[in-house]
C-alpha cells in the first residue's frame, strides 16, 4: 500500500497526485494544512525541474515549496490520462 506513496518531488510537471501523508513537526504540518494540504486532496505539479524549489496547484492555490519541504509531503501519483 504505502509503497505506492512517493514524495511530492517525484511528480513531474503536469502530473496529478493525491496527498496521503504529511510528515514533519506539528508546526510545519499546520502551515501546510493552512495552505490547503491535507490527506485526500488532489495536487497538480506545475513546475519541477528536478532541482531547486517547485510549484504545485492545490485547492486553486499555487504554492511554492522548497525541495526539503516537498520531500515531507507523500502523494499517490495518478495515472496520466488527463
Amino acid at each position, binding site marked *: 500500500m504505502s509503497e505506492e506513496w512517493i514524495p511530492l518531488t517525484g511528480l513531474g510537471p503536469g502530473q496529478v497526485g493525491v496527498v496521503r501523508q*504529511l510528515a514533519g513537526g*506539528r*508546526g*510545519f*504540518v*499546520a*502551515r*501546510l*494544512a*493552512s*495552505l*490547503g494540504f*491535507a*490527506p*485526500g*486532496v488532489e495536487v*497538480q505539479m*506545475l*513546475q519541477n*525541474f528536478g532541482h*531547486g*524549489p517547485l*510549484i504545485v496547484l*492545490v*485547492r*486553486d*492555490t*499555487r*504554492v*511554492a*515549496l*522548497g525541495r*526539503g*519541504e516537498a520531500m515531507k509531503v507523500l502523494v499517490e501519483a495518478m495515472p496520466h490520462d*488527463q
Partner: protein
Amino acid sequence: MTNNQIRNQITVALAGQPNVGKSTVFNLLTGLSQHVGNWPGKTVEQKTGVYDHNGTRVHIVDLPGTYSLTANSLEERIARDYIIREQPDVVVAIADASALERNLYLLAELLSLPAPVVLALNMIDVAEQQGMRIEPHVLEAALGLPVVPMVATKGQGVRGLMEAVDRVSKNTAAYAPSRPEIRADHQAVLAQIQRLIAGAVPEPYPEDWVALKLLEGDEEITSMMRERLDEDRWQEVHTILMQHEDAILAVAGGRYEWIGRMVRAAVVRPRIGQVTLTDRVDRYATHPFWGLLILLGMLGLVFWLTYTVGAPLQELLDTYMVQAGAAWVRSALSGAPAWLVGLLADGVIGGAGMVITFLPILVIFFAALGFLEDVGYMARAAYVMDRFMHLMGLHGKSFLPLFLGFGCNVPAVMGARVVEGQKARLLTILVAPLVPCTARMAVVAVLAPIFFGPHAALVSWGLVGLSLVMLAIVGIALHELVLGGEHVAFIMELPLYHLPNARTIGLSVLQRTVAFLRKAGSIILVVSVIVWALSTLPGGEIESSYLADIGRLLAPLGGLMGLGWRMMVALLTSFVAKENTIATLGVLYSAGEEGARLAKVLAGVLKPAAALAFMAVQMLFIPCVATVATVRQETASWRWTAFSVALLLVVSFTVGIVIYQGAMLVGWGV
C-alpha cells in the same frame, strides 16, 4: 446628512488570509480616517479607522493577514489574541472567491472563537474569469452566517457588507452558524481532553477551543495549560497528546471535510486543465533562467527611474529648498551671533534638508515595492531568488528589499516589512546596511581614482564584492545567533497576477513616507544638530572641535589601520551623510572640497594599504543617521538599534585592520 448624531458604536475586526484584497477593503471603508501604528509592544503594523453607517460609528481594526490562527507566527498570535481578549462586536472574514476552499480554512478557525462572523466573498470577478460560478445565497444557507459578494477593487459590495455587519451586531441571538468538527476518528479523544481541562481554562478562552488547540500542538496554549493544570492532571493530558501526535491532521482534515460540504452546492467549477494568464506568465517569471532575467529587468527599470526622475528632483530640492533656505537664514539673521546662524543654517536646515532630499528616492522605491507587491510579482521574485538567499539563512522575500539597498538603505530597512516572520525580518534589517548604497559608492568614486589611478574600477568592484561577502558572512553568523540556526521552511503562496490598484499602492506609499518623516525625521534632525555642534564647538573651527578631540581619542584604533585622527573624524562625520566624508577631508586637509589639491594631499598622506583599509571601513561603517533612525523605527527597539551600530563598528574596523595589517605583513603598498 440625515443624522449627525452617533447613536452607537461598534468595533469590527477584519480578518483574512494574505493576498485576498483585505487592505483594499480596509482602505475602501476607512479612506483617510485610518491610523497606522504598531500593535501594543509589537513591531507588527496595526491599522485602525472608522466608517459611519446609518448613525452607527463602526471602528474598524485591520488584523494581520494570516493563513490560520495557530500560534506559528507573531501575526497569527496577534490576530487571535485580539479576537479572544478584545471581543470585537463582529469579525469580517474576507475570502478570495477564486480560491474559496483554502480561504475558508481561516473561517473554520474563526468560527470556534466567540465573536460572530460575516463572510466577505471578495474577488468574485476573478473567480468568474477562472470559470467558476459561486452562489452566495447557497453558501449563506449552508454556513448559517451572512455572505456578501464583493469586488473591492471596483468598490462593489461595501454597503452590503456593512449592512450585514449592522444586522449581525444588532441581533447576535439569531447567529447560529454551522461549525466544523474534528474528524470522526478523533472525536472521542477531543471529548476526553475537554473533560480533563474542564474548569481549569482561564477566562476568556473558550474551553472547546483550548482542547482543540492542545490537539493541534499549539505551543502557546500548551504551555498555558501546563501551568494551569495540576501535575497529575497535566500528565494525563500530556500522555493523550503524545499518543495522538498526528491529531493536527484530524483537525485540519475535519475542517476541509466541513469546507467541502459547505461549498459543494454553492460553487460550480470548470473542468481542470485550462491554462490561465497566471500560468502563462509564470512559465517565464518563475523559470530559473528567464525568471532571473525578468527580475534583473524589473530592477533595472526601478533604478533607471531613480536616476532619471529621482536624482534630478533631488538636486532641484537641494538647490531651491535647502541651499536657498540656508542662504535666506544667513541673510535674514545677518546681525545675529554667528553660532545661531550656524546652528540654524548648517545644523537645522542641514538636517531637515537631508530628510527632504531623501523624499523623491524614497517615494520611487516605495511605489516600486508597492506596485510589485500589489500585482503579485513579489512572491515570484522571492521564489527565483530563494535558493541564493537561503545560502545566507535568509528567506527569498528578503531579496527585493535588500536589492533596493543599492539605491538607499532606508527603503531596504523599511521594505523588510514584506518578509514574513519576526526573526527573518529582523535578520534582513540587520544585514541591510551592508548593501553598498549610492552615497557610499559616490565616496568610493571620488577616492578610488585618487589612490589607485588606473586600477580604480577594479578596486571599486572589489569593494562592492567585499561588502556582499561580508553581508553573507554576517548573515550566516546572525542566522545562527538570531534564529538559533533554525531552518526557515520555504512554503509560500504565489498569488494570481492582477491589475495594480492605484489607491492601494498610493496609500502604502503615503503611509510609509509619513512614517519615515514622522519617526525618522525627528531623529535625523536631532543627530545632525548634535554632530554640527560637536564639529564647531567650542571654537568654531573643526580642527579644534570636540569632534576632533574624539578623532584624536580614536587615533590609536586608527593607527592599527594606518589612519590618522583626521581620517577618523571624516568617518565620524559620514554618520550624518556619507558624502560628508569628502567634505570633511577637504576641510581638515585645508584643500577645499574638489579638485586636484585634495587629491594630491590625500595621495601624499595615505599609503595604498591604509587607503584601501579606509575605503573598506567606509563601505562597511555605520550607515547614515537616516538608516539608523529607520532601523530604530522598524525594530521598535533601541537595543537592536544599538546592536546594529555596534555590529557594523566591529565588522568595519575588523576588516580595516585585517586589510592593513595583512598588507603590512606581505609588504604590499606600505
